[in-house]
């Protein structure tokens, strides 16, 4: 996330692809071949069995976004590409994180977690596993908050996104 904090513009592309084997590899291979950088990537089936949706966050520094979109569009299995405008889309990410925490500090963590809207998933002798869903900046903030405790393991999904409803009505 450092690029964003340095002011580089990242783009969130929602790419609808045919649900066929090898399609993700084609997308990944294209990014490698054209030297475009992926910051985050999430793939899942959609409401239509024939289609999957890939949410890609592209480092806007690595290539002009127009070129990324045009090259992606040349992939035969890519059906649609939306370049989501910041502030005009709902973006969500899930984080699972295990933090080191002595029993006497558990309450501090739980208080922070409640405020952030997260959940305790599992409690160990001197550690806790937490989950949090939110927009990526929210997750970043919470992750930073946990660092002083000592993060033992962390797994983030990469972001998924859909355009705001009023953006899609035209």
């Amino acid at each position, binding site marked *: 996330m450092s690029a964003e904090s340095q002011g580089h513009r990242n783009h969130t592309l929602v790419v609808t*692809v*045919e649900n066929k*084997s*090898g399609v993700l*590899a*084609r997308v990944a*291979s*294209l990014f490698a*071949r054209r030297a475009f950088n992926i910051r985050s990537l999430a793939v899942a089936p959609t409401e239509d069995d*024939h289609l999957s949706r890939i949410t890609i966050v592209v480092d806007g520094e690595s290539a*002009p976004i*127009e*070129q990324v979109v*045009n*090259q992606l*569009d*040349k*992939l*035969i*299995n*890519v*059906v*649609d590409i939306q370049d989501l405008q910041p502030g005009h889309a709902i973006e969500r990410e899930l984080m699972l994180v295990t933090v080191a925490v002595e029993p006497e500090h558990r309450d501090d963590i739980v208080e922070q977690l409640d405020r952030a809207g997260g959940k305790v998933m599992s409690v160990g002798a001197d550690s806790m596993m937490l989950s949090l869903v939110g927009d990526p900046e929210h997750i970043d903030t919470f992750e930073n908050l946990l660092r002083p405790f000592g993060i033992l393991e962390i797994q983030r999904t990469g972001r998924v996104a859909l355009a705001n409803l009023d953006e899609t009505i035209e």
Partner: protein
Amino acid sequence: MKTDGGQALIRSLEREGVEVMFGLPGGAILPVYDPIIDSKIRHILVRHEQGAGHMAEGYAQATGKPGVAMVTSGPAATNIVTPLCDAYLDSIPMVVITGQVPTAAIGTDAFQECDTTGITASITKHNFLVTEAQDIPRVIREAFHIATTGRPGPVLVDIPKDIVDPTNPRSSLELEDNVEIDLPGYKVDTSVDPEAIQKAVELIQNAERPILYIGGGILKSRAAESLLELAELTGIHVVTTLMARGAFPDSHELCLGMPGMHGNFTAVTAMQESDLLIALGARFDDRVTGKLDEFAVSAKIVHVDIDPAELGKVRRPDVPIQGDCRTAIEAMVSVIRDSGSGDTDRTAWKSRISGWQERFPLVYEASTPGQALKPQFVIEKLRDATPADTIVASGVGQHQMWASQYWTFNHPYTWINSGGLGTMGFSIPAAIGAKVGCPDKMVWAVDGDGCFQMTAQELVTARVENIPIKVALLNNSYLGMVRQWQDMFYEERHSEVFLSKEIPDYKGWAESMGCFAMRVDDPDEVEEAIARANEVEDRPVVIDFRTAAEEKVYPMVASGTGNSDVIVPPSQEKEIR
């Protein structure tokens, strides 16, 4: 009709109008070779799978029809990787069918297994791994549709053995009469935006120093005639890139010839000094632009391309026009016919152009008695002794540049070369493919000795399959272009560029492959040798021309420098100041 996958594959190729295919059988593709015996498709048995791919490319470039190659799995698939990449960079319509191990064996490192679709994903327009026999007819239709529409390119279809093997129940299918393609993500828009055309025409009308910058897309869109009309209507000079030689007649007064690293001085300089480049089906390749931020700095850009990803990829156009080149040119012509081509005075520009043409023609120093043959001289003699519509296929290196420079291309589809990938060894198989597609035309391969040794075995194919091509081997015993760079940029330190003066014996080698062969050392023997070669119609011909090794390709824009720093031949250096 109930049938098996192998039969359905061949039937599907026939339905696509395939008349000829180039290939070599092996284990995994065996079941598809059986129905070939009963098919009207001509199959040409190559000696190396790379040859099959380049033949399909040569066929496609000469005829405009998609080239088809078929090979087996594993090493055969990897051998055809080079032609696929070559066709991808030069936008050549080609369909390659590869055998694959049976579906159940995929992923087990089976004998002759390789991840063909994985390997070729980034060098094909698209590829398919077919896993059900029932999908074969549709996929073949889709492969040809993708290969031949929009920006053309190579498509690979990987076919596991079990779905084509008639003894395997998995190969059984119902072959429908109508096969519908199903490509929801593939749309081709050839139409052009009239507003953009209007803007382009306004720029043309007001330009003082316009240049038509023509790329291979003109040939792909069959737009040579429309281009001639546009050029004559506007009186704008034309440069034809390496991929577009022949798209505009070299003999035409508006033709400035080839631009780029070894382009002629006038073409390079006219682009450089231009105030409007009308790029038609060209892609601002680094070999054309030289150092990008010094390229044609005062020029506005109109860029027409069928591939939207080309618009702005290298140089941002002032007027981008996505669409078919011919449609765009015809639209421009129509607007100009209505509104005129403008009254901008271009007298000064035309006089500058003719000044450059007078001062910087393409030149070489003729050999003095006893000196080795000059390669340029050989090309000139060949050009003068062959029909105007002769197809020239070239390899890659100095001989390629001399062929492009010194031939006079007055017909489209008569120049076949490896432009983007720069594949040595391209010429002989490409010439064979071209001759198969155009049996009534004379086809000459112009080759170098380095290239010749990479694919010469296909002359066996040419002889055995009765494909009488002719090969002009410009043999200087060196990897000439690399030597030239070592001469110019590495203080004449020659590292691994000398091949051999006497080995191989090219005449003996060619004769052993069933060719008629000659060796020519003396300039006085050149014409007669070519005349004899032109008379041979029943077998391939090879002429081993022993040429001067120290000869360099001029002009030259050195790699990494700008196009204003053209290196001219020594005899013109005084003119540059």
